[in-house]
């Protein structure tokens, strides 16, 4: 008998003994929940969903190349004149980062994608064809959007394809093959590539064509995010028992480099990554049994998450201040990089969104109502992001079965509900030039 065979035999016996009678009977509790749960029609089930992600959009504007041949002067002048006229007649595109004007909304609900006019709140289906479509996300210049599609009835496991189309729904095409466990994607700043995670690996798809490329050197990852402003690297969280933040060239021609300098506190460290628009800082969530002051949280209430800011150049970390006895989780930067929005965790079992200064100087302000959650912050059923004009938060409250999306102004005026509400509802806002 080999060493491994002995180990396996011992382990089987240990597993049986160890597992026996550990979990008390809770079948009645489960059935009470299922009894109140509505079954889905066959076409509308999907295990995974992606968070709302309005990010910062790059400029796609390219200057026409100079003429390379000598031509008749009059002809050259004519060409130049035509080029100037053509450029002048094109709609101005927003800068990739910074404050922009809000454009139309795209939303997915129950498997279809709709365009919502922000002035009239009227929605119109884009009519993208068959399939269960969800999670539309605009490119940084607002000229295109990408979304996920499951062809035919959805089954478990979900097999998804990433599609891209022009903002009006034209020129629809797939950029990945049907892929299992496709999750978390991000546009490159120049809008030519998309980074995504599938089966724990980092992939980059080029919109110009060709098969997506797996960046094997990244390791097992999550949350791939292009580093502003030039997108020369992709940041990601390494998924191990000692997680860390790393970066790698999207070309895969260099080794990954460590960005975080502090060893992980535990395997839940370095979650919910968001990057500042200038690429100088990132925020992340850290879970700990002791607060930043070193004092332990009450054991009966469990650990508590806090939001940290990291200087990407040095790896130095600062915890964002918050009210005593509360936690923080998640985060998003405002388009100008001055504010961050995160969930404040209340020990009585609730959460509430707040905005605060991104430099760690505090000035927390609550945005929207308190919502039920878990005292340890492990269950925050919401995703949020700033609108391109930086004046409101786009907040999706709910889970993958049912959700509602609200536009919540930061000035305290009442929120407005985005039209429609349903399963797999996601909303994104187009960036327009100011």
């Amino acid at each position, binding site marked *: 008998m080999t*060493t*491994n065979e002995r*180990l*396996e035999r*011992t*382990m*089987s016996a*240990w*597993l*049986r*003994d*160890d*597992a*026996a*009678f*550990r*979990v*008390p009977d*809770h*079948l009645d*509790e*489960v*059935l009470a*929940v*299922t*009894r109140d*749960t*509505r*079954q*889905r*029609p*066959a*076409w509308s*089930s999907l*295990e995974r969903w992606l968070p709302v992600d309005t990010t910062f959009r790059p400029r796609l504007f390219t200057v026409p190349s100079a003429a390379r041949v000598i031509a008749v002067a009059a002809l050259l002048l004519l060409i130049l004149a035509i080029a100037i006229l053509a450029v002048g007649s094109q709609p101005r595109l927003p800068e990739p980062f910074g404050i922009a004007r809000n454009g139309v909304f795209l939303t997915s609900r129950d498997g279809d994608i709709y365009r919502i006019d922000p002035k009239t709140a009227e929605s119109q289906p884009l009519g993208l064809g068959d399939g269960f479509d969800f999670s539309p996300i605009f490119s940084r210049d607002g000229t295109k959007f990408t979304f996920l599609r499951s062809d035919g*009835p*959805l*089954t*478990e*496991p979900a097999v998804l394809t990433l599609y891209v189309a022009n903002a009006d729904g034209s020129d629809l095409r797939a950029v990945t093959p049907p892929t*299992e*466990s496709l999750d978390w994607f991000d546009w490159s700043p120049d809008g030519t590539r998309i980074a995504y995670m599938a*089966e724990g690996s980092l992939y980059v798809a080029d919109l110009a064509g060709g098969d997506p490329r797996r960046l094997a050197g990244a390791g097992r990852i999550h949350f791939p995010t292009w580093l502003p402003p030039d997108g020369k690297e992709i940041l990601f969280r390494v998924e*191990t*028992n000692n997680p860390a933040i790393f970066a790698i060239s999207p070309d895969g021609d260099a080794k990954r480099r460590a960005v975080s300098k502090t060893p992980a506190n*535990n395997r*839940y460290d370095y979650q919910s990554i968001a990057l500042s628009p200038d690429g100088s800082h990132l925020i992340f969530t850290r*879970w700990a*049994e002791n607060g930043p002051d070193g004092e332990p*949280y009450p*054991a*009966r*209430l*469990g*650990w508590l*998450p806090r939001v940290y800011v990291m200087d990407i150049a040095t790896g130095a970390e600062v915890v964002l201040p918050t009210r005593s006895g509360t936690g923080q989780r998640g985060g998003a930067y405002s388009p100008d990089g001055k504010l961050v929005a995160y969930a404040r965790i209340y020990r009585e079992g609730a959460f509430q969104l707040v905005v605060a200064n991104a430099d760690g100087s505090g000035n927390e302000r609550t945005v929207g109502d308190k919502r039920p959650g878990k005292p*340890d912050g*492990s269950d925050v059923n919401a995703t949020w992001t700033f609108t391109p004009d930086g004046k409101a938060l786009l907040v999706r409250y709910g889970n993958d*079965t049912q959700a509602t999306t609200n536009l919540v102004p930061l000035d305290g005026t009442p929120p407005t509900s985005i039209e429609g509400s349903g399963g797999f509802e996601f909303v994104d806002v187009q960036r327009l030039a100011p």
Partner: protein
Amino acid sequence: MQRDLVERARKGDHDAFAELAGAAISRLDPAAWLMLRDVEQAKDAVQNALVRAWRDLPTLRDPDRFDAWLHRLLVNACIDEARRLRRHRLDVDLTTISAPSIVDDVSAIEDRDRLERGFLRLEPELRAVIVLHHYLDLPMPVVAATLGIPLGTAKSRLHRALAEMRAALDADSRVRGDLVEGRA
């Protein structure tokens, strides 16, 4: 019999689903405990898996694959649970109501302690392979299908899990040896 229950449950018959859940929970609970090592998290994972099973049953194309599908939902739920954080690891587990049924000698108890420490160091995905294969006794092709990964990947994960367990146990033995000999 089970196929009939699945067919009925797919059409919204909750009593049929209750029978299916009642039969399954006795293996789901221990499997979830093994993967998560926390009673409350295990209960949450099993509940999430069964609620999803009920909700998504109409999408299950082949009723004969119900068990494999349910195992997959459980594994996903456990991995989701494990990736969040959670409660203080030193919370007293008041719901443990039985000790292991076998009377062990000192050596066996030490072995089991070391196994537990080694197992705790594994990533959730590796624990899942071990639990499916060594606790639920699923053949490796079924483990692969349950996890939705190629057979080679499943075997590779099992190999890696065993190697990591072995390394952890060896390291543990060395530390204990050092302690006995007063070197640490």
